[in-house]
Every structure is written in structure tokens, then in C-alpha cells.
């Protein structure tokens, strides 16, 4: 009996310590601390930075990249990489445009079409990677180009406007929160980001899918030899990630009131940067959605802050590059210490 008791004590103590210093939790704390430091620093440097309007602007600017980064998180934890998230987002936006504006379907159908299309494209990448064994970098590089081209082809290289469906822009631009708390007109895009993040986080931590995401990233062959249909699950993971890109596509289309077919390339790097700054390992097996969200915010706070300070644009690029390296370095240092 006494053994059991001491063990229990031991465990609870350990879990407390773990919460504070463990790899995952510690990383989050560190990332969060960097975010706070950035916000505080910019707040001191410019009186305009901490104004409600600007903070809401930052939230809104994070929405699209945040959702894309969440999509990338899943793939990166499996040890893969997805270069197509940006152009897939655009492709889904174009598809929504085709359904709503060209074909005049109701909004629900357009939204569903975009999500399904995202899932299908994701599943295609997953199929290439799982069944045809094309390395993720190449499969998604190919998809990136393919989708970029297809977006232009389908849209006729012109933006598709949502003028006939005035409710569509409302999705991202209106503010549910603003109705309830008029002083906080946070646009729905931000709300959607948080819903996506919470859902993605729960799925990652508490479902079979999440378990397999981590396991595949840790040792895929061992998972296969445990009787798990790894090909199937990989395709599912990429499909889910693709559907999340579809959400990003709806957000950006709704925000811009148009599907801009040439947009999207380059967004994958921002998304990956956010994921990695948030402490997810590119070699797979380790990561959190919360970290990714913090990483996204670090990037947008940085971008916004430098703009607010009117730093010359070329220097903004320099500073962002340095900060990305430093953020990841700090994480590594912290982990090396323990």
C-alpha cells in the first residue's frame, strides 16, 4: 500500500514539474513569452501599436496564415511537409467563386464545395506520398504548381468577385463578438481561426487520428508493422489538412470579397515558419497546435509592429529573417538545457 501511495505522490509531483519544464509545455511558455516581449516592446516603441483597432488588425491579419499553419502542423508532425497549402487555399477560393458566382449556387453549397475540394486535393497529395511513395516535398511542390496553374485556368486569370452573394463577405468580415460586446469588433475570421485551432488541437491530442499523426512522425515503419494501415491514415491526414486549407480559402475569399487566382505562392513558407517557431519539429513526432497559433501571432505582430514603426521595408525583411532564426534557436537552447 505504502508503495502505491508514494508512487501516486511521485506522479503528481512529476506531472506538475512536467507541466512547467516539459518539452512541449516549456516550449509553449517560451514561445508565449517571446510573443509578450514583442507586444510589449512594440507597445512601448509606438503609441499606435496597442490601440484596439490595431490589435484587431493584427488578429485579422493572422487569421489566414494561422489557419494555413494549423493545416501544416498536422503534416509536419507526421514528418512530412506541404508546400501546396498556399496555392491550395487559392484553388479552394476559386472553386467557391465558381460555385457561387459563375453557377449561382447558394452559399452553403459553395462553402461545402471549397472544403470538399480542399480535402480531395489534400487526399491526392496524400495518395502520391503514401501509395506512390513520392517524397512529400516533391509531391506537394508538384501540387503547388499544378494548383497554381489550375486556379488561373479555371478563373480565366481574372479575380472572381462575390458581388451577387453579399452574404459571403460577411462570413469573415462581420463580427459576431462585436454584436455581443460592441467595444470588441473582432471579425469572424478571427473567431473561425480560434474554432479551427481548438478543434485541431483536440483532434491532435485526444483522438485516434492525432495518435497516428504523432506515431507516423515518430516511426512510420513500426506503425505499419503494428498492423496500422499507414497509407490510409496518411491520405486521411493530408485530406484533413487540405480541408483546413479550404477553410483558409473561404476566409481569404470572404475577406477580399473575391477569389484572387494569382495569390498563394509563398504563403507556405510563412505557414511553415509559424509551425516551427511554435516548437513543432520538422523531423516529425513532436508539436502542438497552440504553439503554431503562437508562432503565427509572433510573425504577424512582428510584421505589423515593424510597419507601425515605419521601418523601411527592406529592413523589415532582414529583421523577420533574423527573428525566425532566433526564435527557433531559443527553443533549441531551452530544450538542450533540460
Amino acid at each position: 500500500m505504502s508503495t502505491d501511495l508514494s508512487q501516486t505522490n511521485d506522479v503528481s509531483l512529476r506531472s506538475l514539474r512536467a507541466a512547467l519544464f516539459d518539452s512541449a509545455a516549456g516550449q509553449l511558455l517560451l514561445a508565449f513569452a517571446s510573443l509578450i516581449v514583442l507586444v510589449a516592446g512594440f507597445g512601448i516603441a509606438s503609441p499606435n501599436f496597442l490601440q484596439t483597432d490595431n490589435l484587431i488588425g493584427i488578429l485579422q491579419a493572422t487569421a489566414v496564415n494561422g489557419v494555413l499553419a494549423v493545416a501544416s502542423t498536422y503534416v509536419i508532425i507526421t514528418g512530412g511537409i506541404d508546400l501546396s497549402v498556399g496555392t491550395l487555399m487559392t484553388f479552394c477560393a476559386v472553386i467557391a467563386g465558381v460555385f457561387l458566382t459563375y453557377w449561382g449556387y447558394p452559399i452553403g453549397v459553395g462553402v461545402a464545395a471549397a472544403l470538399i475540394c480542399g480535402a480531395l486535393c489534400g487526399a491526392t497529395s496524400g495518395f502520391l506520398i503514401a501509395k506512390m511513395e513520392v517524397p512529400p516535398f516533391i509531391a506537394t511542390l508538384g501540387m503547388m504548381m499544378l494548383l497554381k496553374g489550375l486556379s488561373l485556368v479555371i478563373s480565366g486569370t481574372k479575380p472572381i468577385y462575390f458581388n451577387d452573394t453579399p452574404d459571403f463577405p460577411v462570413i469573415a468580415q462581420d463580427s459576431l463578438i462585436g454584436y455581443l460586446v460592441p467595444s470588441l469588433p473582432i471579425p469572424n475570421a478571427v473567431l473561425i481561426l480560434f474554432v479551427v485551432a481548438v478543434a485541431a488541437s483536440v483532434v491532435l491530442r485526444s483522438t485516434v487520428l492525432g495518435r497516428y499523426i504523432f506515431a507516423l512522425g515518430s516511426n512510420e515503419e513500426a506503425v505499419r508493422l503494428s498492423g496500422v494501415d499507414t497509407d490510409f491514415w496518411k491520405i486521411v491526414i493530408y485530406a484533413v489538412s487540405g480541408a483546413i486549407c479550404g477553410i483558409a480559402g473561404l476566409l481569404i475569399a470572404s475577406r477580399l470579397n473575391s477569389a484572387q487566382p494569382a495569390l498563394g505562392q509563398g504563403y507556405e513558407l510563412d505557414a511553415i515558419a509559424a509551425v516551427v517557431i511554435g516548437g513543432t519539429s520538422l523531423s516529425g513526432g513532436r508539436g502542438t497546435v497552440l504553439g503554431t497559433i503562437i508562432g503565427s501571432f509572433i510573425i504577424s505582430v512582428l510584421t505589423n509592429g515593424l510597419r507601425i514603426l515605419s521601418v523601411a521595408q527592406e529592413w523589415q525583411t532582414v529583421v523577420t529573417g533574423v527573428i525566425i532564426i532566433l526564435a527557433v534557436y531559443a527553443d533549441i537552447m531551452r530544450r538542450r538545457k533540460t
Partner: protein
Amino acid sequence: MTALIEVRNLDKSFPGVKALRSASFTLEAGEVHALMGENGAGKSTLMKMLAGIYSWDSGEVLVDGAPVTIAGPKAAQALGIGIIHQELNLMNHLTAAQNIFIGREPRRRFGFLDEGKLNFDAAALFRRMNVTIDPKTLVGDLTVAKQQIVEIAKALSFHSRVLIMDEPTAALNTAEIDDLFVIIRDLKAHGVGIVYISHKMDELKRIADRVTVMRDGETIATLPAQSTPVETIISLMVGRELAHAEPPKVPEIQGDEALRVVGLSRGRALRDISFSVRRGEILGFAGLMGAGRTEVARAVFGADPIDTGEIWVRGAKLKIHSPADAVRAGIAYLSEDRKRFGLVTAMDVEANISLASVMRHRRAWGFLDFPSLKALAARYVKSLTIKTPSTAQVAKLLSGGNQQKLVIAKWLARDSDILFFDEPTRGIDVGAKAEIYKLLQSLADQGRAIIMISSELPEILRMSHRILVMCEGRISGELTAAEATQETIMKLATRTHVATGTARGGAHGDEHGPVANE
């Protein structure tokens, strides 16, 4: 005479684990010093500190009587300390010769390599070890056993004064072990001090001069190897007397047929393999390394494709295209290479134990049933006495033997009733070995069919109700428990299909022509 190496009161902690507590031992020139201890006792950790891979927290190390610090592998080499690691550390895309001389390549001017000399030196080394490996084969194409031999060759090539061997024979067959011992005696005669780690008790008597026993990170005692009874050493290791009764052989098994394999073939690796196993039976697979036993298991398990062949499970013919099919049919495969094929090392004990059965512990919408998963893990940690601070410990941080137990737990949790155990006790200490034997026995008693692949003949003889012997991808014979002896098995294991001499010298050998005497 000052000792070659003297270790005084070394302490070493890892997060959550105190791996060494005031460990001490001395190594004299020209002795073989065996280091014995259960899994996780701290043997590898102690040796890794001497090899410059970890630094110690406190204590001191003296080389030739002078205190030293060992900052890295290079520093260890400079002190004349060489090591064969427990885990293989090879570059699969490089050739055997390139692996052996990595970092010390013979060079011409301007950093150009002298590949001719490189290969020549490696060939000489292999000749001295009496093995036939082409120095130009890619290491990735070698079997685990040959890879182990390459590791040994590499350690020898340093001409170290101190050679640490961390379970060098775990993957070797009897003949290769004999060759290795010849080399060890030769080194000993030249004044090299050798630290020898193994879980095989017989080797202790064959090669060691002194033995130091470790338990829970402490060095318990140092004793003369020849005059100390094995039982004493074992009881020091486990800290108690071990019940050492041979389990009685079970008579003929009368259960229903669980698995039948007919005419399984793939290329040259597997040729016309047919066998069957009954419920409650332990079927032993014996053979030399590379005989194709692993390949049989992997083929039946769906891990590798087959050319032809039928698989019948419980009387029904099944098509098995993937491990998922096999597992669904109740077949389990416990791989010989746990790190690569058994574990998700970055995940915790619970995730590893439940890896094959997680689908049974879910609620609606695919949500995990955490209490049930935790209970499952705790149950197996307890029943297999897996040494871990908690079920949330990362598998990577467990010792080799405890990792092996995790893999076993994974399949037990899945409740499979046809189990392939491929070298189930590789790298496992005596105490744990006995537990695993008991476990296999009780699984069989529960009516499961067990196929046990093992290169350790005593183990095969002790456990199996029936023994199949393989040679060069064929089943070369079948023995009942009554007929089987080490001699009968070895005879079958070397009976190649077309009689071309022994497996080692003939079919696999590369013709290097006559070997010049040095």
C-alpha cells in the same frame, strides 16, 4: 602496476533517471573484464562516458594513473579507448571499408582519397577476423550480423589499448562468436584491456578474467570470472535468488491447426517454405544468420510481398497483403530490430504499448479512451516488470531490454493468437529472459500458437515443442523436441541444398583467392 583505467565514484543523472550511483571499477592491461547487470543497470552509460559520449556529473576517471577528462569521441580515441556500441552506428549508404575508416581515410594530395588502400586495408582486417565480407558492399545491404561484424572491425582498426565491447555478440552465430573470441584472446595477449558486456552467461566463463556486477547504477562487486559460480553472479545482478527450474517439456500438442503456410517463395530469399503450427504449440525456427527466418516471418506477416504461396489461418485460406491484414487475422510479429521496426521511440510507454490496439480503446468519434489506455499500459508495465519511471516516459529513454519488453507488451495488448517472436530475448538480461520464457510458455498454455525464431540454440531447445531448421532460404529439416540437440540442429542448419560445403565458406563467400600470410 597502475591500472589501465580506473573509474572512481562516477555519478550520472538523466532527466528523471539516476543512471549511475558512485560506480567504480578498474581495468588492467591484458585482461578481459566482463560487465554484467540487468537491463538498465547502467552498463552502457558507464561505457559511453569512457568513450566520450556522455560526461559524468561527479567522480573521476584515471588513465594510467592520471586523472583525465574525455570531451568527445576524438578525445577517447586519443587516450586509446575504442568502443563497439550496443546499437549499430553505421552509415548505410557507404561501403563496409568506407565505414571502417571514416574520419581516417587514406589520402593522397589535396584531400583526394586513396580508395585502393582503403579497400585493401579493410580486406586485410576482415581476413584477420576470418570473415568474408566484400569491403565494397554497401553496409545497408548487409544483414544485421554482418553489420555487427563491420562494427567490430572498425573498433579493431583503431588498435586501441582499451577496447569496450557492448554486447558485440547479440547478433552473431556460434561460429562467428568463436572467431571473435580468437581475436579477443589475441588482443589480450598484446596487452589490450577489454571491457566485455553481454547477457550471455556462457560467454562469461569462456572469455572473461574478472567480472564486475552492476545493479541499479551501482557497481556491486568485482569477482574472478572463472572461480565464481554463475548462480552467484546472477543473484548479485538481480539482488535475489533466481528460481532456476527448467520448465518441463510439454508432450505432443493436440490443438487445432492455427496457421498453415504452403509453398511460400520469393526470389532467392525464400524457396518453397511450408509448415504449420497448432494452437498451444511453440514452434522453434533455428538456423544460421541470414538463413531466411526473418524473411519467412515478414512474408507471412505481409510486411514483404511474396511471389507464390498460400497462407491458411484457422483452416481458412487468407490473402495477406499488408501487416494490417495479418494483424486483423490475429497474427503478430515481434521484430528482431526493435528500434527500427518495433517502437515509436519518440512516444511514451503508453503509446507504444497501445500502438497495435489503440482502435479498441476509443469512444465515439474516434476519441481516445485515456483511462482505459492508461490502465492497459500500467497492467503490462507491471506484469512484464518494465523498468520505467511512469507510463508517460518516452520509450527512447528506456534501456534496450526494457524497450524489448515494450514491444512484447504491444502484441500482448493486441491479443493476437498467432505470434512470431523474432529473437525475443536479444539483448535481454537473464532475469528478464526467464520472465519472457515463462510468458511464452503461458501464452502457449492459453492456446496461442507461437513461432519463435532464435539464434540461441539452448533457448530453442528449451522452449520449442517442435523445431524447424532453415538454411539458405529453405526449410532443411524438422525435429521433434525429443530428437533435437545442438548437434542435430547445426547439422541441418549447414545442410545447403546443393552440397557446396558450409554456409559460411561456400555459397555466400566472395572468392578472394588464396590469402597471403602476414
